[in-house]
């Protein structure tokens, strides 16, 4: 194990433990809520990243998965189903839908942008349809609202977020994960090396949808009340894309950084300047796409590189000849 790896794992453990202790140490509910939001966004961005960042298939309709997750989980949970099956159902419904569109779409080898605008259209269809079929607000069951324990929900959602990141990590490091990245690099070259692009895209889609649905489930569990079709709004498609890119698409930590940055920036801006966070984030997003495709992760790597070079320069600047 390299030093780098040991440090990473140590940091991870410290981080998780710290997060676990937050509810006991922190009084303010608003910080807990903020963290929960970060967790949910992390799940959202991470799940998108599997298909978009690692496999290179840009999905602009991720809200479909998120929304379906909230719908399934909410409906089941409010009917009295236990929590975990409800959450699971959220993921499953999202995957089922994903397969329904993914199979024909990928089988036909649609051009990249056709897939993307197709996802846009589908998410819109769901948004309108859900808005028509369920044009009302959904409330958590009364007992839940009366006994709403923020801390408990905090831990559940933290666990879900860690689960999501964990799954993403394992998937990416696995052989199928390698195949996905090959498809992103150059689909034709990958095929010629024996990578079945169709299957890998479908796999990435499945995981992306499941975890996206799970994120939705988390939201449904957390949010007291919202309009049924709110979780299908385009904003839930926009956010994960920008977060993943700004943070660093195609990495595990990228979406996490992106989510944190997004939520923190939003809070800061709202308090000081106003609701400009989307304009700022949109600009950052464009800058990343054009100039810094690795996002903040790349920035960090570059800084580290620059820092690690300096000591060496100092050594060799001593004339030895």
């Amino acid at each position: 194990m390299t030093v780098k790896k040991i440090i990473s794992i140590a940091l991870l453990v410290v981080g998780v433990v710290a997060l676990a202790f937050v509810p006991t140490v922190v009084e303010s509910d608003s910080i807990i809520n903020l963290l929960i939001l970060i967790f949910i966004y992390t799940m959202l961005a991470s799940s998108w990243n599997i298909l978009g960042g690692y496999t290179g298939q840009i999905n602009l309709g991720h809200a479909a998965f998120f929304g379906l997750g909230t719908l399934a989980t909410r409906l089941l949970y409010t009917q009295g189903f236990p929590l975990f099956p409800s959450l699971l159902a959220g993921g499953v419904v999202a995957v089922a839908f994903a397969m329904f569109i993914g199979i024909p779409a990928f089988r036909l080898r649609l051009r990249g942008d056709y897939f993307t605008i197709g996802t846009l259209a589908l998410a819109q269809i769901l948004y309108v349809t859900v808005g028509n079929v369920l044009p009302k607000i959904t409330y958590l069951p009364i007992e839940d609202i009366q006994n709403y324990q923020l801390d408990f929900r905090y831990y559940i959602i933290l666990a879900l977020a860690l689960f999501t990141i964990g799954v993403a990590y394992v998937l990416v490091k696995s052989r199928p994960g390698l195949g996905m990245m090959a498809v992103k690099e150059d689909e034709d070259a990958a095929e010629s090396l024996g990578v079945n692009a169709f299957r890998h895209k479908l796999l990435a889609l499945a995981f992306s949808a499941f975890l996206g649905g799970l994120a939705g489930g988390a939201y449904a569990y957390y949010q007291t009340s919202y309009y049924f079709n709110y979780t299908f709004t385009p904003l839930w498609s926009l956010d994960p894309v920008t977060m993943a890119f700004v943070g660093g698409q195609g990495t595990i930590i990228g979406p996490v950084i992106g989510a944190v940055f997004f939520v923190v920036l939003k809070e800061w801006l709202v308090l000081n300047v106003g609701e400009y966070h989307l304009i700022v984030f949109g600009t950052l997003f464009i800058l990343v796409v054009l100039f810094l495709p690795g996002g903040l992760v790349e920035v960090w790597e570059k800084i580290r590189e620059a820092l690690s070079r300096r000591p060496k320069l100092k050594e060799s600047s001593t004339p030895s000849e």
Partner: protein
Amino acid sequence: MLAALAQGLVFGILVGALYGLAAVGLSLVFGVTKFLNVAHGELLMFGGYASFWLFTLLDVDPFASIPLCILFLLLIGLLLYKVLFSRMVKLPTEDKIRNTLLVGFGVGLILQNVALRLWTADDRGITPDYAGVAFTVLGVRFPIVRVASLVIAFVFLFALQLFLRRTYTGKAIRATVEDWEAATLMGINVHRVYLLAFVMGAALAGVAGTLVAVGYSVEPAMGMHWTLKGLIVMVMGGVGSITGTLVGGLILGVAESATAILISGNYRQVVGLVIFILVLLVRPQGLLGTKEG
């Protein structure tokens, strides 16, 4: 029922012309540069808001404001192309497709929120004195504003057709759509053609936006809505065919009206989207129509 259908047909045609106009700009850009500008709807929205401001602040009649809107959108298009899109022209195809899509997406996001800041989320409409006037034929209402919009849309489409058919620049554009390398061998500066197509696309969006603002309304979230409309019609009509695009727009407008009357007003939007998905699946290469408009 018959009366409702007849009225629906008329309204469908009136809005369909605008769908066609909205799609033509998108189609022009896609055909020439092969970028799918998903911020096209936001450009349309800005055209609408520009006219709105000219009307409310300076009392400019919306139809008279069209030339100014065109100018405004030409500038925005120029800015967007020079600053952003021109950087992606040289990328290999896959990257070009993906990056232009993403950048367009970012631009749309920014424009939408700028609009939100400037004009709030409320619906805005332009209501000149003649706004409510309509003439009635056989019991069917024809609001003048929308009829005028249809006429103007047709005029622009016709003008575009003439431009592409009869002028040297227009032919250069058509040549670039077909085969940009061969066009280069003729001495055609393909980069200039790209720029021209892009700004023309923006200008056409602006005109459509003005017409939408005066006949209907504008609000910041309409961008995505209209981009999708443009995409649907472009896919139905085939890139490169202006008549096809117009017909596609009219069909969409009528299909939506029919759905609203026969099924429910709420599903009006879904019809187009479903058609779109079906066409994408049935003709995945269908966006590259070969017929000349």
